């Protein structure tokens, strides 16, 4: 008797503002088998047309890079949570390559809105340690699509449902594992809900605080990496005007005057503040967010640290405008901490 590969999956369609479980029945494994999973994937794709025949939203052509930010997931295996509440899907893992994350539905069109391409986004979270699951318990997943007033009221701008498919791949174990503990992946993320950004020549900071990147468990948390993403909207979030241009923050990140990042650990030791750049505007100029985003291309830094119970990281994500903004750009930087802890099996 050999181990056998196994992949479980479930999917759900979400309207704006909806939170729904992801086909729990389909996520059940065989009832008598021990399983071990190494990878979780989230596929996010807007549905082409509403059931009522409404045309595609013009906003869809701009959202491909941030679908993973619009959709949030909450994951639990047995009685152990894999996420701290809902986490934007693209905060689960480093960016691998955009070619892997986005696949275009190139053959489909809505000529009335001049949409030629539709995006689908694949998020892959490779676990640092495999997740062992008892028979019958694999994953409880919920997906949420918040109505986002910061970027766009998605119920108005994007009436299309968005389909979320969660799958987990691994193997069915031929024999029960000979271990009394299992490593449970864990992600906690911070996304500002109401950021206060400067309107003119100012430096505004968002403090992540002590709780967002904390080890909430009574056992050590092995932190493997810290991920960064951002969403930007260069037009005012006015549903009645131009469609929101939600996209990734590459263009902003490449401008070192715009997004900054600092990270400390709980003892106030610098984790990610090293920089040679000093400006008269801020003598303690933090690292440009771009560095975290673009190098090493993963939008992630490797940490390999152990957080003891209640220990935490703090971070400040700031935005500086060297001149009065004319485009009303809204930017939401996000940060997440990914690792695992050991739990009794």
């Amino acid at each position: 008797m050999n181990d056998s590969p196994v992949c479980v999956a479930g999917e759900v369609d979400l309207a704006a503002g909806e939170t729904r479980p992801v086909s729990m029945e389909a996520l059940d494994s065989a009832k008598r088998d021990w399983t071990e999973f190494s990878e979780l994937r989230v596929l996010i794709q807007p549905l082409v047309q509403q059931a009522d025949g409404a045309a595609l939203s013009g906003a869809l052509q701009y959202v491909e890079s941030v679908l993973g930010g619009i959709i949030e997931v909450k994951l639990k295996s047995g009685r152990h949570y894999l996420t701290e509440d809902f986490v934007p899907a693209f905060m689960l893992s480093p960016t691998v390559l955009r070619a892997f994350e986005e696949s275009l539905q190139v053959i489909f069109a809505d000529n009335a809105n001049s949409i030629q391409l539709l995006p689908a986004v694949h998020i892959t979270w490779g676990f640092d340690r495999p997740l062992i699951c008892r028979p019958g318990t694999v994953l409880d997943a919920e997906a949420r699509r918040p109505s986002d007033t910061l970027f766009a009221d998605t119920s108005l701008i994007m009436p299309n449902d968005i389909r979320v498919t969660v799958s987990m791949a691994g193997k069915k174990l031929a024999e029960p594992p000979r271990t009394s503990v299992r490593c449970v992946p864990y992600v906690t993320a911070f996304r500002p809900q109401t950021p206060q950004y400067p309107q003119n020549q100012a430096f505004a900071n968002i403090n992540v605080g002590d709780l967002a990147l904390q080890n909430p468990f009574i056992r050590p948390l092995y932190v493997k990496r810290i991920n960064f993403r951002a969403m930007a909207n260069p037009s005012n979030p006015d549903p009645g005007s131009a469609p929101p241009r939600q996209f990734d923050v590459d263009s902003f990140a490449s401008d070192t005057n715009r997004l900054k990042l600092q990270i400390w650990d709980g003892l106030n030791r610098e984790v990610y503040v090293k920089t040679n750049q000093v400006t008269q505007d801020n003598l303690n100029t933090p690292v440009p967010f771009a560095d975290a985003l673009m190098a090493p291309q993963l939008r992630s830094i490797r940490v390999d640290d152990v957080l003891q119970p209640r220990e935490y990281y703090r971070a400040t994500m700031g935005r500086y405008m060297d001149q009065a903004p004319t485009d009303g750009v809204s930017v939401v930087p996000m940060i997440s901490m990914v690792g695992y802890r050991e739990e009794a099996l």
Partner: protein
Amino acid sequence: MRFPRRVLLQGSAAGLVALRCGRTALFEDDEPNGSEDMTMPAEGSVRPLVRRAEVLLQSNAGGSPQALALTNPTGEPWEIHEIKFGIRRETDLTSREASAGALIGCRMTWLGKPVTQGFVPVWNFGLAKRAGLEIQTPVRYSPLPSSIYARTSDAYYGWELDHPLYIPPGTTLLPEFKHSGLSPRTYRASILYSGNVLVNAPRPRKVKVPFVSAWQSNFYEALTETGEETSPETVLYNDLGAPWTIERFIGRVALNTSLLADPGGGNATIETIVDDLADGLFAGEMFRVKHYDSLGNIVVRGYAAGNGPPLRSVYGPRGRAWQQRHTLDAEQRHTIVLFKKAAPEGTQYAVVSGGFDSQTIQAVHGAAQISAVGWREELVP
């Protein structure tokens, strides 16, 4: 990733080449799927060696490159670490037909023993580590008087072997190509081996020999056609008489797009192969799968009758692969059931822009191509 000390100490270029082998993880941060061992004889000095050969393939025809070009000319044994495939269109250079791995299949044998189970599409061997770079679009001179420059696209695919493949003196890994017939045009297929020459190395008794099997579904029209089919018993089947360790499944979607006009050839309808970066609605929505093995293990459970998880959610987006090492005993097989759903209501064919001008799509057909890539142990004769 662990490497035996003797390999790490080889030093210089040879050592680096040796280090590449067995790196099945997609990126540096990834742990490989299980521990890696290198059983190849690496005693003594080694030096890198690259061999390459190519063959012209007319539509629906087969051909083999010269074996001599793929043999170590010094007569010493060597080991192959990586195999690369290249596809280049040789006729009608001005058409906008795109190359893709679905066009050419490859069959290989090692010392008379099969490395593939029949022909396998060349993009179904290795991880798509840089999927965005698989298609290259060079600009070439064309002899056509009406067009100084011809635009075409070439396709390149790599396969880093999970274990070095020992090649005894005077022999080689023998490839044979076959044009799928999806295009009426002639293609040039190339194959490249890179590895190490083993100087004064003892002849190994056993080696790990790759083995790949692939299944291709029928082509389905995108918008309206529906269907269900099951992979036959002759593929994804262990007929080796020994355990087959499968490292990964690779899932590709071959898109065959018919355009209404050909910018290079007047108004004739042409066939275009689109690379699978644009597999969107096929892989994510219309192709659904169920997967089980001959021992009764449900590998992927369907949702309900005629439905299952999307192909790309199973055979993952990273590298177009699902990395999961497991062993399939002799005479066992994997079986895949593919459901083709109709496109969601309201979809229609788009206008393809770029290249010479915009083109209206007449029809798009898609087929799933799923392979199992692994190895087994063989005695060296």
